[in-house]
């Protein structure tokens, strides 16, 4: 056993860990005491990352598909073949599906390969709609396209508003910090349409009607702005555009908003009052799974701006992504919306997401380069199968490899140097801690090798060289260096000449910074129950189902937990309030059909007091549920946003 410092690469929290390495192999993992974010804690996923990092169930060698079968070839042959095939297409015919799990260095060079070598602007992640929307709102409003506050300041917040998804399950260590803050006297308030674990740990749970979040936020903002509870000095000195926002709010009817939110006026007034009086306040929401739509983020941001709860210690509007390096992937330009450094992609530089291109009918798409990704496959399997060329670069095989014409193995985060940027903009370095299997290279080296075969020579001898170039291309990373990262637990961007050792929270004092209200023009239409479909169904993801679950299935304990859930509910379950179950005449574990306007599915009933009468909840952890029901019912689940579907439940 020898403990080597690093960072967990599951969710966006970015917890510190210590890998146990013995005889050159990963043998275990331990929480890292003294890490500023995780402070010596890990969640169930983090405690088992060694099982993933040590698995032999992975792509071990380069391969080319011949006569329908993947055949092992040399790295050079695979790269030459892929480069030649990709060279046959125009930039508009190739899309690059980047990975929010990959390092900044990997993503930066994949984006560079796409944009400069193959002249394709079509590079993007999947499952980043929520983060992209949040980043845009915060960039336009505050000039900072990520968390405005800091995870390390949670214990300094006097009021914390958790909006939507169960942060205790999605980002457990952030949930833990919120719980600690509440135990220390902070006012923890959850705004959600289901009684989640974080709701149970909150001092107040404002139990929304499904689809009523925008209404609740708008109502609170209206009260705050119109009753003179806003922070006048802050709004005057620091912001612009309140008039527009106030005008949007003035046309709204408070009673109607409260009714649509499913809250009483007293509850909403109390929220507005507490927010305006709190010495400091933070908002947290998931920008990944079950994230907020753009209008909700804008309303939340405007509400906090009006209350003056931004830019001070313990304050901020804080999106939390579900995957470790979504923030960094955006920073280095793995997005069709932004080039490196969040420069907006315009004209010929503006591309479309791989998702859009896969869904387009007809499509110009002929080839796809996929880096360590397992999303998209369910929805677009037929389209992907029909592509002329698919290159897969990654450490673990998944359904993409079944369709790939060339497969290139990649090193795991334990086998290569690389940086990862967490939710609070903390850039952290993972050093190579074990040797990769013979012939396996970091993904960025595969990109460089492909570029070389296309006649473009990149001169990087190490990941550190790539970071040096990133520091030049991304202004917020200007002062980031490997030696600085290595001596610390990471640096929070902006890290530049003005902020040499990083920036904890939105720097209000930077010259020219003026905060703009997002002037949210929300659509307040909400799905409502009808006689035919009297129940409102909420969809989310189950604990042990993390993205396509391809990764979790390579572990032992989390896999066992997932299997235990599957054994209990082989076709999934729907949470039903006992009162509704009585009316329907169904018992716990009874088989029922959940019927929506567009489709139906058969699942088991799970009785639960965590859903209100008139609402039901389906955590999805079975792939069939996506094409079979959620897609058919038009759910935004694939957009990773909260979706509400009117349904009825039929006994079978």
């Amino acid at each position: 056993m020898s403990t080597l410092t690093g960072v967990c690469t599951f969710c966006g929290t970015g917890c510190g860990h210590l890998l146990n390495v013995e005889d050159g192999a990963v043998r275990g993992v331990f929480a890292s005491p003294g890490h500023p974010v995780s402070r010596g804690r890990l969640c169930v996923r983090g405690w088992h990352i060694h099982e993933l990092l040590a698995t032999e169930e992975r792509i071990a060698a380069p391969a080319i598909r011949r006569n329908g079968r993947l055949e092992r070839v040399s790295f050079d042959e695979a790269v030459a073949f892929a480069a030649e095939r990709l060279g046959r297409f125009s930039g508009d015919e190739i899309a690059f599906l980047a990975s929010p799990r990959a390092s900044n260095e990997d993503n930066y060079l994949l984006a560079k390969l796409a944009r400069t070598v193959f002249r394709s602007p079509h590079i993007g992640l999947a499952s980043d709609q929520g983060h992209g929307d949040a980043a845009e709102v915060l960039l336009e409003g505050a000039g900072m396209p990520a968390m405005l506050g800091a995870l390390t300041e949670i214990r300094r917040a006097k009021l914390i508003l958790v909006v939507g998804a169960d942060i205790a399950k999605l980002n457990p260590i952030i949930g833990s910090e919120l719980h600690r803050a509440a135990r220390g006297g902070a006012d923890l308030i959850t705004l959600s349409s289901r009684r989640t674990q974080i709701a149970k740990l909150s001092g107040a749970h404002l139990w929304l009607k499904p689809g009523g979040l925008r209404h609740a936020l708008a109502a609170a903002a209206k009260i705050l702005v119109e009753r003179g509870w806003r922070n006048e000095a802050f709004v005057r000195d620091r912001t612009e555009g309140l008039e527009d926002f106030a005008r949007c709010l003035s046309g709204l009817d408070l009673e109607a908003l409260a009714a649509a939110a499913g809250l009483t006026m007293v509850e909403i007034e109390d929220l507005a009052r507490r927010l305006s009086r709190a010495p400091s306040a933070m908002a947290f929401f998931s920008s990944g799974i079950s994230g907020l739509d753009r209008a909700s983020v804008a309303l939340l941001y405007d509400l906090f701006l009006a209350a003056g709860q931004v830019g001070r210690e313990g304050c901020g509007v804080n999106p939390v992504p579900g995957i470790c390096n979504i923030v960094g992937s955006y920073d280095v330009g793995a997005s069709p919306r932004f080039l490196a450094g969040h420069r907006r992609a315009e004209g010929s530089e503006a591309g479309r997401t791989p998702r859009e291109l896969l869904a387009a009918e007809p499509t110009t798409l002929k080839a796809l380069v996929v880096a360590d990704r397992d999303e998209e496959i369910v929805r677009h399997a037929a389209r992907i199968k029909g592509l002329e060329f698919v290159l897969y670069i990654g450490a673990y095989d998944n359904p993409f490899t079944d369709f790939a014409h060339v497969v290139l193995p990649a090193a795991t985060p334990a086998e290569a140097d690389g940086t990862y940027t967490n939710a609070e903009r903390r850039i952290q370095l993972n050093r190579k801690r074990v040797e990769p299997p013979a012939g396996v290279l970091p993904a960025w080296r595969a990109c460089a090798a492909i570029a070389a075969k296309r006649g473009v020579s990149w001169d990087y001898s190490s990941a550190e060289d790539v970071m040096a170039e990133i520091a030049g291309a991304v202004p917020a990373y200007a002062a980031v260096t490997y030696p600085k990262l290595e001596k610390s637990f990471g640096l929070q961007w902006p890290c530049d000449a003005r902020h040499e050792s990083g920036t904890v929270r939105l720097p209000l004092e930077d010259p020219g910074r003026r905060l703009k209200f997002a002037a949210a023009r929300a659509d307040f239409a909400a799905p409502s129950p009808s006689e035919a479909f009297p129940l409102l169904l909420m969809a989310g993801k189950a604990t042990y189902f993390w993205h396509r679950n391809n990764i979790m299935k390579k572990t032992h304990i989390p896999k066992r937990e997932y299997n235990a859930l599957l054994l209990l509910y082989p076709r999934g379950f729907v949470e039903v309030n006992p009162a509704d179950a009585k009316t329907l005449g169904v018992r716990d574990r009874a088989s029922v059909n959940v019927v929506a306007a567009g489709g139906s599915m058969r699942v088991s009933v799970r009785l639960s007091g965590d859903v209100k009468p008139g609402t039901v909840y389906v955590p999805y952890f079975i792939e069939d549920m996506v094409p079979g029901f959620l897609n058919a019912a038009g759910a935004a689940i694939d957009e990773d946003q909260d979706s509400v579907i009117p349904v009825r439940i039929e006994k079978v």
Partner: protein
Amino acid sequence: MIVYILPKNQARALAAALAEGYELYGPVLHGISGEPLFDRIGDPDAIRLDAAIPYNPPKTVVFPQAERILSYRYDRETRQAEIVRDDLVRPKALVGLRACDLAGLLCLDRFYLGQEYVDEVYRDHRKKMFIVANTCVRPFPQCFCVCTDSGPAAREGYDVALTAVGDHYLFETGSEKGEALARRLGLKEAGPDADAVKKKTVDASIASFDAAATENKAWISRVMNRITTGFIGNDVWEYIGDQCFECGACSFVCPTCSCFNIEDLAARDGRTGRTRSWDSCSYEGYTRMAGEHNPRRPVEDRRNKRFFCKLSYSQSKKYLRPGCVGCGRCVRVCPGDIGMSNVVTYIRREITKAGAK
């Protein structure tokens, strides 16, 4: 048992002598955070006997997080399986083990080397092990070994026990191996007052414990009584269960937690390795039985199981001591607020409330 004197500047010599025959493990400080960790030691100078209790439990050395215990290869043609007990256990010296961690090791011994069943891999680890205990001369903030009868000085199970006194350590031997080391280092025997000096040091250490720890002493036995008799309201368990993030950390850091999972993993070379890895009663799949039965599905039932295991009388009979050794690690790693001392406080609160009625 003989008591010798080890000058503090000879601590390195002790570590270096052990490093010749053993892989050396002991407390070191983390390079960035400066936090103490129990780790493999390459350079005997890195060892920090004065560091606070290490964040990770030394049980990792004898009961690793994941360990291959055997491997097999099945030949489809001949229908023969070749099973190999891989001899992967190497001799290890644990230097600077705290009394609580040593008490934990003895609990593991009773589980793995009990009379009904002896675990051969574990036995191998233990047989090839050299233990240098280290008396806690000052308690650390989360410690409460005085409440669980497991410190601050070790009473048994060591080859050598050190107690820091001024510019030297009292070097007590507890085995023939320990005696041999004393001779090898050429140590002088301590004077006749050694026992009195040690007692004074230990008493001073006990006196410097936090009031919360000493005050809890009586409460832990009352809570044991409550847990054994089952007189704890469901609302208390629910209060605890709501705070459980189901991460498993309390089991992983616990010096006495012995539960494991078995997984057979096919390697690329065609062999299948049987791996034993840490498991935790906080996971739903842990208690799931064939036929879909799960006696402890709700999270509060699972938490309740943990504290029953640590503090009930029937479990203590197996360990010949409480299942908690008072190291306080579960308090530090818990994402909720349900480390052992907090749970005792919650139950104490209930007892007090009930008494007031």
